[in-house]
């Protein structure tokens, strides 16, 4: 027996919605097995992971706080991945955005005004975009592999942040802790509600999702991105410059990751410290795929993944499960979504092996 794949006709729309739902269902089923293997009560564990995080308004706000950077980064990555550009260094661009914006907050401490916050956001976006342009320029000029370069730059950004908060930017009154000062009020994003942490960053992210949706669905640029990814030869005949597009999508995704970084610094953490990101840049890759590389899809997927993020933290405290469990589920989810995509586009069949010729 062997497995063959036959292309299905007209499975487009069904696949769009069915495949992520099926993937989530399969992940849930697998996690029940995993919890059972680990000697946990699966129902209690599922409750901790998926329901407890959204059981009150404070929890819902926390989900929004976690989903904001994930969605923002994933929307940018979706543009990249759509056009066959593999920026997997969003984590680095996120940190550089935080460093550029946070640097302004540290620098203007004590004499800043209302202009500080907009300047921080712009600096964060510019920093992220420039950092993302390094792999893009190397790719377009010399065909250097953008996956490896963007990934190596993540480690460099982590070390840069580490150096800054232990060295020049360390809080002089922070008892030698490796962290900057807590940002002044004019360098922080305003909260939306009292008694929670949800801030203006969530609103900005929603605006970005709307803009990205319009760009992808209604503009020539959006068409170009999709065409270069799906039919590069046709795109070249149509006169689209794929090198220029590579630079554009890298810059945009870097800017969005940088914006996510500076909003995390100015809105949620309100200072810089090592280990400032719980790997948002990497998790956003999963969000982008789970969201079908579509801005609105990324929004839904980001909220779902944010719930599991908080669920993972809860599970660490309540069930004493290792925090890495969350990564296991995220990896599993991405496996399933990839598999489901194929199963919906192709019909797998077991056929008897032919006699050797």
């Amino acid at each position, binding site marked *: 027996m062997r*497995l*063959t*794949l036959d292309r299905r006709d007209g499975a487009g729309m069904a696949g769009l919605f069915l495949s992520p739902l099926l993937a989530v269902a399969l992940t849930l089923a697998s996690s029940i097995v995993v919890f059972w293997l680990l000697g946990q009560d699966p129902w209690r564990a599922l409750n901790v992971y998926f329901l407890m995080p959204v059981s009150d308004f404070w929890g819902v706000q926390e989900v929004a706080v976690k989903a904001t950077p994930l969605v923002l980064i994933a929307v940018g990555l979706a543009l990249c991945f759509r056009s066959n550009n*593999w920026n*997997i260094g969003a984590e680095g661009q996120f940190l550089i955005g935080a460093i550029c914006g946070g640097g302004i907050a540290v620098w203007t401490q004590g004499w800043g005004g209302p202009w500080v916050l907009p300047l921080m956001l712009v600096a964060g976006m510019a920093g992220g975009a420039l950092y993302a342009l*390094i792999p893009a320029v*190397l790719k377009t000029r*010399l*065909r*250097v*592999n953008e*996956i*490896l*370069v963007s*990934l*190596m*730059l993540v*480690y*460099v950004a982590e*070390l*840069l942040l*580490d*150096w800054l908060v*232990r*060295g020049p930017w360390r809080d002089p009154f922070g008892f030698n802790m490796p962290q900057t000062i807590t940002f002044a009020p004019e360098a922080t994003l305003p909260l939306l509600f009292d008694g929670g942490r949800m801030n203006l960053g969530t609103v900005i992210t929603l605006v970005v999702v709307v803009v990205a949706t319009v760009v992808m669905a209604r503009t020539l640029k959006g068409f170009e991105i999709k065409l270069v990814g799906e039919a590069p030869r046709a795109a070249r005949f149509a006169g689209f410059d794929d090198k220029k597009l590579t630079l554009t999508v890298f810059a945009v995704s870097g800017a969005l990751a940088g914006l996510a970084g500076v909003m995390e610094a100015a809105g949620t953490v309100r200072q810089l410290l090592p280990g400032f990101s719980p790997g948002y840049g*990497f998790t956003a*890759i*999963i969000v982008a*795929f789970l969201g079908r590389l579509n801005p609105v899809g990324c929004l839904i997927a980001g909220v779902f993944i944010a719930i599991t993020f908080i669920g993972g933290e809860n599970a660490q405290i309540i069930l004493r499960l*290792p*925090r*890495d*469990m*969350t*990564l*296991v*589920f*995220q*990896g*599993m989810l*991405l*496996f399933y979504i*990839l*598999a489901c*995509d*194929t*199963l919906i586009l*192709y019909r*797998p069949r077991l*056929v008897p092996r032919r006699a050797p*010729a």
Partner: protein
Amino acid sequence: MTLAEAIFLTVITASTPLLLAAIGELVVERSGVLNLGVEGMMIMGAASGVAVAIVTGSSVLGVVAAIGAGMAMAALFALLTLGLATNQVAAGLSLTIFGLGLSGVVGAPFVGMQRAGIAKIEVPFLSELPLIGPILFRQDPFVYGSVALVAGVAWFLWRTKAGLVLRACGENPVSAHALGYPVLRIRFAAVLFGGACAGLAGAYLSLVLTPFWTAGMTAGRGWIALAIVVFASWLPWRAMLGAYLFGGLIILQLHAQTAGVRVPSQLLAALPYLLTIVALTVIMALRRGGGQVAPQALGRPFVPDR
């Protein structure tokens, strides 16, 4: 032992895991498959290796478990990319994320448990030679194994018919399929070999280099191994050269840190990553106009028609 000897020895131990992982990935990529999950397979090898070695008290069983874990991860990747023809980049990334998570879960009970490393093999008399004695004839079995593996892969890929067929699958799977070769089965074997090598590299990290488990202990070595394959233009002996160059850089950086060079330690720690970028850029600049050296069908799924 002189300082020069000590440096050479540490360079070899730092390079060996890179070489093991790179030579495996080289075979995988020669068959036309791009597995970005090296980091994930490697760290699963490291975690399973140390876990089994501690539980059973046997380093050999630990190594076997590491190879098995690497192969199991590779099989998962093969199921997706070969069986279901999914995007190889995305599947490789998810393999890395999954491996980093699962290794943390597997390794959690063993944090802080130290054990004796694997003994070195001393060749009688020859290891007494000055300078080259300890470097060439007093190494752990992995070092000898890695060199033998490079020689074996070089011989297999260029001196055997099976190697030729494997390369054909990477250059032009359609023609290979038309000639009646089972492209997917050959790619599957290559991917499993890559997984075994990555698992072995992981075992080296957790059983020899630092004989204990820490989460995330591969620290990007799997990714550097991927860069070495590009740097080596997909040639086995050049991969060995590349691995030793990178290993040398890592050690140089450590020695500079302990010697108290007046630059931030973070800059020195960033050097291997920065130099990976520089090396990739230089090699691509040199290769400019020199045509395509990567396997033609690298990263493209192949679905045989009947």
